[in-house]
C-alpha cells in the first residue's frame, strides 16, 4: 500500500493531464457519493407524502360511507371504493371506537392483525409504519373523526397499505439513480478528458516546437501560444538568441585570436628562414623554428578544442553524405593530380548525432590523411546500430605499422614528416571523440592501407 502511494506521489510518474484527470475523477466520485443520501431521502419523503395522500383519500371514502345511528356506526355492505371489497386487494380499512375497540373492518382486512391501538391525542391524523405478525410492513394512516357532532373524536378511521408496492418503487428508483449517476460520471470524465486534451494542446505544440529547435530545424519558438505561455516562450527565445549570439561572438573572437597570433608567427617563421641562409646562424634558427612550430601547434590545437564547445540546447543531427561530399569536393581540388576514387559505403540519408563543425573536423582530418597517403582509393563506411555510431575511413596507402599505431593517436605526432600538415589531426579527432564519449582505433584495411575506425 505504502509502495503504491509512493509511486503515485513520485515526481514525474504521471503526465500533468493524467494527474488532473485522476484528481478530477476522485472529486467527481466524492461529490456523487455525497449527493446519493440526499437524493434518496428526498425521494423517500416524496414517496411517503404520496402514500399519505392516497391513504387519506381512502379514509375519506370510508368516512363518507359511514352512517351513525344513536352512537352506533353502521357501514354499507358494499363500499364505493372497489379496493376495499376485493379480497386480495392491497387496501385495508379499520374503524375503531372511542375505547379502542374494532367496530369495523373491510373485507380485505379479514385475518390481518397489525396490533394497532388508536391514541385519540387530538393530533387529528398521522402516518405510521407498522408490522403484522408475519413481519410484513404496512403504511398506516389514522384519522380521528367526530361523527357525533360536537363531541370529541368518537371513531378512529385507519387505512393501511402494504409497503411492498412502495418498496418496489423505491428499489426501481435507486436502480435508476445508480445507473444515471454512473452514466453522468462517465460522461463527466469523458468531457474532462476532452477538455484537458484541448487545454493541453498548446503545451504539446510547445513541445513540438522545442523538438524542432533541438533538432535544428527551427531557430526560435513562435508566438502562437496562449498568453500564459508567452512569457515562458519569450524567455526561452531570449536564451536561444543570446546563446546563438554568444557562440557567434565566440567564433569571431577565436578567428581574430588565431589571426592575430598566427600571422606574427608566420612573420617570425619567414624571418628565421632568412636568417638561416647564413651558415653560422643555422643552429640558432633551428631552435627558433622548432619553438615557432611548437607554439603554432599549441595555438592551433587549443583553438580547435575551444571552437568545438558543444551547445547545451540544441541536439544536432547532420547528414553524413552532405559532409562527406563537401570534404571530398574540397580535397579533390587540393589533391587534383591524384584522381582519388572515394567509395561511399553508407546509407545516403544516414544522420550522425554530432555538430556539423565537429563532424567536419573529425572527418576532414581523417580524410585528408587518407587522401595524402593513398594510392588512389578511399572507402568511407558508416552505420548506427543500438545507439552506437561507427564510421570508418580506409585507404590503399602504406598503412600504419603496428608499433606506431599508439603513437599517432597522441597529440602532435606525425609519421609522415615530409608531407605537409599540422600534425595535430588525429589528436583533434581524439579530443572530439572524447567529448562525445567515443574512441578512435587504427587497423588494417582490406584495401591494403590504414583503416581508422570511430565509435561513439
Amino acid at each position, binding site marked *: 500500500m505504502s509502495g503504491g502511494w509512493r509511486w503515485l506521489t513520485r515526481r514525474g510518474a504521471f503526465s500533468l493531464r493524467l494527474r488532473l484527470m485522476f484528481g478530477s475523477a476522485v472529486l467527481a466520485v466524492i461529490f456523487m457519493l455525497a449527493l446519493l443520501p440526499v437524493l434518496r431521502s428526498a425521494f423517500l419523503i416524496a414517496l411517503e407524502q404520496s402514500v399519505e395522500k392516497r391513504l387519506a383519500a381512502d379514509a375519506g371514502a370510508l368516512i363518507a360511507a359511514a352512517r351513525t345511528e344513536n352512537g352506533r356506526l353502521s357501514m354499507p355492505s358494499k363500499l364505493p371504493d372497489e379496493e376495499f371489497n376485493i379480497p386480495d386487494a392491497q387496501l385495508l380499512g379499520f374503524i375503531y371506537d372511542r375505547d379502542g375497540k374494532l367496530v369495523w373492518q373491510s373485507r380485505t382486512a379479514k385475518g390481518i392483525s397489525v396490533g394497532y391501538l388508536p391514541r385519540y391525542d387530538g393530533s387529528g391524523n398521522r402516518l405510521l409504519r407498522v408490522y403484522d405478525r408475519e413481519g410484513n410492513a404496512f403504511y398506516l394512516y389514522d384519522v380521528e373523526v367526530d361523527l357525533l357532532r360536537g363531541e370529541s373524536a368518537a371513531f378512529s378511521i385507519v387505512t393501511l397499505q402494504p409497503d411492498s408496492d412502495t418498496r418496489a418503487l423505491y428499489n426501481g428508483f435507486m436502480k435508476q439513480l445508480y445507473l444515471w449517476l454512473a452514466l453522468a460520471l462517465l460522461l463527466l470524465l469523458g468531457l474532462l478528458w476532452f477538455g484537458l486534451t484541448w487545454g493541453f494542446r498548446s503545451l504539446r505544440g510547445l513541445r513540438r516546437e522545442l523538438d524542432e529547435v533541438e533538432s535544428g530545424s527551427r531557430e526560435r519558438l513562435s508566438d502562437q501560444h496562449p498568453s500564459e505561455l508567452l512569457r515562458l516562450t519569450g524567455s526561452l527565445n531570449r536564451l536561444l538568441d543570446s546563446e546563438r549570439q554568444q557562440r557567434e561572438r565566440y567564433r569571431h573572437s*577565436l578567428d581574430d585570436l588565431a589571426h592575430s597570433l598566427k*600571422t606574427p608567427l*608566420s612573420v617570425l617563421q619567414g*624571418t628565421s628562414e632568412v636568417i638561416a641562409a647564413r651558415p653560422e646562424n643555422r643552429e640558432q634558427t633551428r631552435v627558433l623554428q622548432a619553438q615557432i612550430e611548437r607554439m603554432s601547434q599549441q595555438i592551433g590545437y587549443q583553438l580547435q578544442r575551444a571552437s568545438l564547445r558543444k551547445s547545451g540546447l540544441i541536439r544536432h543531427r547532420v547528414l553524413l553524405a552532405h559532409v562527406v561530399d563537401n570534404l571530398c569536393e574540397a580535397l579533390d581540388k587540393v589533391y587534383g593530380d591524384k584522381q582519388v576514387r572515394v567509395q561511399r559505403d553508407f546509407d545516403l540519408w544516414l544522420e550522425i548525432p554530432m555538430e556539423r563543425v565537429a563532424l567536419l573536423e573529425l572527418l576532414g582530418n581523417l580524410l585528408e590523411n587518407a587522401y595524402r597517403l593513398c594510392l588512389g582509393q578511399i572507402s568511407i563506411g558508416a552505420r548506427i546500430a543500438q545507439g552506437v555510431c561507427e564510421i570508418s575511413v580506409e585507404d590503399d596507402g602504406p598503412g600504419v605499422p603496428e608499433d606506431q599505431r599508439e603513437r599517432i593517436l597522441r597529440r602532435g605526432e606525425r609519421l609522415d614528416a615530409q608531407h605537409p600538415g599540422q600534425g595535430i589531426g588525429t589528436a583533434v579527432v581524439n579530443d572530439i571523440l572524447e567529448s562525445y564519449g567515443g574512441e578512435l582505433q587504427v587497423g588494417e584495411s582490406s584495401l591494403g592501407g590504414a583503416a581508422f575506425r570511430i565509435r561513439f
Partner: protein
Amino acid sequence: MKLLVVEDEALLRHHLYTRLGEQGHVVDAVGDAEEALYRVEQYHHDLAIVDLGLPDISGLDLIRQLRSRGKTFPILILTARGNWQDKVEGLASGADDYVVKPFQFEELEARLNALLRRSAGFIQSTIEAGPLLLDMNRKQALLQGASMGLTAFEYRILEYLMRHHQQVVPKERLIEQLYPDDDERDPNVIEVLVGRLRRKLDGAAGFKPIETVRGQGYLFTERCR
C-alpha cells in the same frame, strides 16, 4: 609569373613579396580586398595568394567576387585557423588550395608551383617542346640536353610563352611578367629580350618556335608537353 598577394599584415606581406620575387615571380602585394579587386582589373595575374582574415571585405568574399568577375587564375588561401569549416568554405567559394599559418616558405612554394603547373595543364614540373626542355624547379632551359644559359628575364619570358603555347601573348602581358609597376614599362625591352632568346634557341639546332604576330604579340608555335 605574375602573382597577386593579398595579406593585411605588412611584415608578412613584405616577406612574401621579397621571397616570391627572389623565386623569379613578379609580385603584386596588397593589404586589402578593395585594392586587390582594383589590381586584377589592371593586370593579368597568373595566381593569387589570399589571406582569409582580411579587414572589411573578408578573404572568402574576395574569392567569390574574383570568381564572379570571371577570373580563372588559381587561388591559394592562407588561413590562420586551419579548421575544416574554413578550408571547405574557402575551397567551395573558388579557391584551389590552402596553406595554414605559420608556413614554411618551401611548403608555400611547392603548393604554388603545383597550382601553376596544373592551371597550365602540365602534370610534371618540366615542359618539353621538341629539343627544348624547361625545368621549372631549377628555372633552367636545356636545348638538346645542354643549358641555354638564360638570364632571369629571358627565362621568365620563355616560361610564360611555353606555358601559353599556341596562344598569342601580347607584349604588355610579357612586360607584366618582368616589372611590377607601370612606370617601368618599355616595350622595347621585350623586343630585345625576345630577340636574344630567338638567337639562343636558333644557335644550336635551327629551332625557331617563337613567332611575331604583327600588332598583337608573340606566339610559341611548338606543341609543349
